[in-house]
């Protein structure tokens, strides 16, 4: 594990930090530390403006190759960018679905025309995307997609069905959808990957109110909604391949940035403990020390992952999601225990509000992107080679 960085990396780090310091000011000041998971409804209009501010500085899509409009940064420099962005309190990225998920899929599987049509809007921070995978009957069993699609005589596609847990669909212009194009097919066979404008007569978006009161997720209903003939990515039947390739795209480069935000949250908990006098409580001290140990573990785990040989199974990578989500959920409980009765009333106090959000939203952390239970199956089967769960034949 290498803890030293090169002089060039340090220069780059300074460049990012300086840019953030110069630009996350004025009207954007109120966005600092806002808009993360559980807080995605914070001032979307201003955060979209911030996306364009980033784009003007060429700080969107930093990991994309230059010919796709990106900055072509190395893995090391992408890590530094995410770290410094989070350290400066950079707001949750409105464009992250387009930049982190759809863009890489188009770069890998899209036609030249699709790249030309869609990549520039993502890079410029002008087109926002939503992800249409999960369905009421396709959660952990993601391949159990029931939404269907068919092709009309003019070559265009029609889609009918329902998607759910669609983050920020109500703030997005486009959605990419996994739908069944071969009637009677099962599991991951017979799916198509379609690009669809959200603003059309066949699509209805309804917010889902979460336990913390917010509405960043939606249900999206499709009733013979239309996708253009040239807006299918890959061939009909290749949808699963495209979707999975896109889940692999991330490679953990934003992990250290996420941890920078976690550090900020732990700092808030420590400050709250000082303020409430709980810093004298031996059990609270144990839990805070434990939380700090977990942060160090996550940092070293990420450094192990980044310095590892990516062709072999990475044991540190396979535990990553389970570890951080449970750590974060525990931090949420610790935060409100430290606050005591102060946590019981919705607050606008910047020392309290984020901790309340943390407490409620971290309950989702161990559910989305693979529940705890699915993660443990993966760890046992892929990490330890234990027998697979019985699966019905597709």
């Amino acid at each position, binding site marked *: 594990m290498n*803890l030293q960085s090169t002089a060039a990396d340090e220069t780059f780090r300074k460049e990012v930090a300086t840019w953030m310091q110069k630009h996350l000011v004025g009207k954007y000041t109120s966005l600092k530390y806002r808009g993360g998971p559980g807080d995605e409804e914070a001032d979307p209009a201003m955060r979209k403006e911030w996306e364009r501010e980033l784009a003007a500085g060429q700080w969107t899509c930093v990991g994309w190759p230059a010919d796709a409009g990106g900055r072509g940064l190395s893995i090391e420099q992408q890590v530094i960018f995410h770290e410094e962005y989070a350290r400066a309190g950079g707001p949750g990225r409105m464009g992250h679905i387009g930049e982190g998920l759809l863009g890489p899929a188009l770069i890998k599987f899209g036609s030249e025309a699709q790249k030309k049509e869609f990549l520039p809007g993502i890079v410029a921070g002008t087109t926002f995307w939503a992800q249409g995978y999960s369905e009421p009957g396709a959660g952990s069993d993601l391949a159990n997609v029931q939404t269907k699609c068919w092709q009309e005589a003019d070559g265009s596609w029609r889609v009918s069905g329902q998607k759910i847990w669609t983050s920020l669909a109500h703030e997005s212009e486009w959605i990419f959808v996994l739908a069944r194009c071969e009637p009677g097919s099962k599991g991951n066979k017979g799916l198509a990957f379609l690009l669809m404008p959200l603003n059309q007569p066949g699509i209805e978006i309804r917010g889902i109110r979460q336990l913390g009161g917010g509405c960043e997720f939606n249900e999206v209903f499709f009733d013979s909604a239309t996708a253009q003939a040239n807006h299918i990515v890959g061939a009909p039947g290749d949808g699963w391949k495209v979707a999975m390739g896109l889940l692999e795209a991330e490679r953990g480069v934003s992990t250290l940035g996420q941890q920078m935000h976690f550090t900020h949250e732990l700092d808030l908990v420590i400050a709250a403990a000082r303020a409430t006098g709980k810093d004298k409580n031996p059990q609270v001290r144990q839990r805070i020390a434990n939380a700090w140990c977990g942060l*160090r573990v996550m940092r070293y785990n990420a450094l192990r992952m980044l310095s590892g040989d990516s062709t072999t199974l990475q044991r540190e990578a396979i535990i990553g999601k389970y570890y951080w989500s449970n750590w974060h959920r525990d931090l949420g409980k610790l935060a409100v225990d430290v606050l005591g009765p102060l946590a019981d009333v919705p607050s606008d106090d910047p020392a309290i509000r984020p901790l309340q959000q943390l407490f409620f939203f971290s309950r989702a952390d161990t559910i989305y992107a693979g529940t705890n239970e699915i993660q443990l199956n993966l760890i046992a089967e892929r990490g330890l080679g234990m027998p697979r769960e019985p699966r019905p034949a597709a």
Partner: protein
Amino acid sequence: MIRDAAENFLADVSDSAAVRKAMASERGYDESVWQRIASELGWCGIAVPEEHGGLGLGAVEIALVQEQIGRRLLCAPFFSTVCLAANILKEVGSNAAQKQYLSSLAEGGLRATLPLPSDVAGWSAAAANVVATRESGHWRIQGVVDRVPDAANAELLLIFANTSEGLGLFAVPADSNGMQILTAEPWDTTRRFSRVIMDLMLPADARVDEPIRSAGFARSLALARLYVAAEQLGAAQQCLDLTVAYTATRKQFGRVVGSFQAVKHRCAEMMVKIEALRSAVYGAAAQAAGDASIDVLATECMMARALAGDALFYCAGEAIQLHGGVGFTWEYDPQLYFKRAQASSHWLGDSDALREQIAETLFSSAVHA
């Protein structure tokens, strides 16, 4: 490379039968294995500077070897000689003391040890009941120290004592007049501890620490914690490996028990704790090899040690449970790891005490890394 060599060698010389044989022997280890470690493999000199006949490597490499040693519960004076004695001499020893002892430690010709207190304060706690006074050009050492590992086999004891100028470290030959070494047989017979009672006279050059290197006491304590943690990591890994292997063969209800989700998830939880610990140990070792300040290194190594104690006990307990009835027997190995887990849980401070130290650091500083 050194990791693979250690893994292969120890699988060969320190399997379950060999460990049990060593445990039952009077000395507690196999001298021929120790000789091979010292002369063939050169492990004793890993972190000893080349000028003193060592390999000039450092904490990263010792941690890797310790991990494999813990995995196989190797019975040998390696931990006391290398992780404790050579470690502290390198960090605080005067030039003369380094010259006198490091090369024989590096070649494994000298078995040495020092106390391993359970108090989180570390070395100073080991000096609590030992006083060193100057008497007519000699040092007089009086007092009692508990918990000296491998003392019954060591030729040299490094003893912490309070002097009029503070903590001092003294080289005491095991055959000195006025020294009694009392060894009780513990539950974990893979590592034996002694109580040492002293009232003896030593020559003036018996004080081996160099006062201007006194910061080395804290650094050697941090490294010792790291090496304990690495050993606990390896032991935890073996608990998981034994369990996965056993549950892959044991059948009930017509299927291997390892195919039940209730069992798989518990093994997966073990893996999560072990890989988290591995990241912590490797990270702390990388800090030790880099340019971390002593304050940072001390906290990182406390973190690794606290996590390691908890992870090992958890995994040893799970290994017994998931082996079912045979896990409770003398014949199967989980019991060996369970005993080591509890015995080592308080070496250089238990996890609660270490976390309290970390909390103190967090609350006393405005910022943290």
